[in-house]
């Protein structure tokens, strides 16, 4: 099964979205968004894997050693940073929602406020 790692990424994505759809707590929903997003890390690292390759850092290995793809690893780094900042921003929105409405259950947030 050479597509098993990719299937794992797809499963993580759908599991995260399922959590967001059924969530009764906004903090939980933000956590599920982070889970859904982490599927991209698995997918990118799976795409960049080279059988027999090592980490793309040449400080202690000869420069002709086969290594895994550094481009996707750099993309994952960007992904993690952006994911963390988005999580922080969403959590501060949740704090504001809790302060203004007294609830963090998305099903109780039905009306628009001016």
């Amino acid at each position: 099964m050479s597509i098993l790692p990719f299937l794992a990424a797809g499963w993580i994505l759908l599991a995260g979205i399922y959590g967001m759809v059924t969530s009764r707590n906004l903090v939980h929903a933000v956590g599920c968004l982070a889970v859904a997003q982490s599927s991209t890390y698995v997918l990118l690292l799976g795409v960049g894997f080279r059988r027999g390759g090592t980490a793309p850092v040449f400080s202690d290995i000869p420069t002709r050693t086969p290594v895994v793809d550094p481009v996707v690893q750099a993309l994952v780094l960007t992904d993690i940073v952006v994911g963390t900042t988005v999580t922080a921003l969403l959590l501060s929105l949740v704090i504001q929602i809790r302060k203004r409405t007294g609830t963090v259950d998305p099903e109780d947030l039905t009306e628009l406020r001016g």
Partner: protein
Amino acid sequence: MNRRARTAMFLAAAGVTGGFLVAAFTQLPPFGTKDHPYGTRAVAASLQHRTANAVSAVNFDQRALDTLGEEFILFGAVLGAVALLRRARDEDRAAPQPGGVLPSTRLFGACLLPVTVLVGAYVVAHGQLSPGGGFQGGVVLATALHLAYVAADYRVLRRVRPLAVFAALDAVGAGAYSLLGLAGLCASAAYLQNVLPLGTFNDLASGGLVPLLNAAVGVEVASGVIVLIAQFLDQAVDIASPHRPEGGPKAPDSTGEDGR
């Protein structure tokens, strides 16, 4: 929409999405393939610029402009969190109560804090040589300062963390990255092009612009994370429970009116 209908709708959508995902995955290059055209070229370009850590070379040399954008996403998020979590008019500040801490915990924190700061600085400085760099080291640095909160208490943290200084450093780090890019323009090359002397391969001073950009990112990430955590800690420790609107499910006695 009730919960059952919503779950049914999710399952239908997930089935379609999953089908397309599986169809797409079967068309991908096989897992573990030897053929990585971009990876091979990126490694060659990184060795040509004498940067031992190919991931850093991609982030701070070949894709430096993307990292500029990434850095400003971080900057914008910190700014947004500060704006969202600022103290509202109807909130009161309460002096945090010091909690009891075991002397051994205190000693552990006092010994570990300088070590962790050193590790963070090392990870930032060696971003072009070994795994790590500005983003990773910056987070280690920010974590180090919060050992003061874990092992002592909030007032100690406030003493080792002058928030105004770190807020300014956040902007300085972001600005330094943008300004370092101008070095390329001064040497009549492209913005953020690696025009500095490349140094010796596998040396601390190698990779040209890469270590400098790493340092700028390290300063920005460390102070950004510190400012961010400070906002959340303020909410949890410093700000007294706010005045709740009428009809909220949990309306405590409103003591917030005198907080202006």
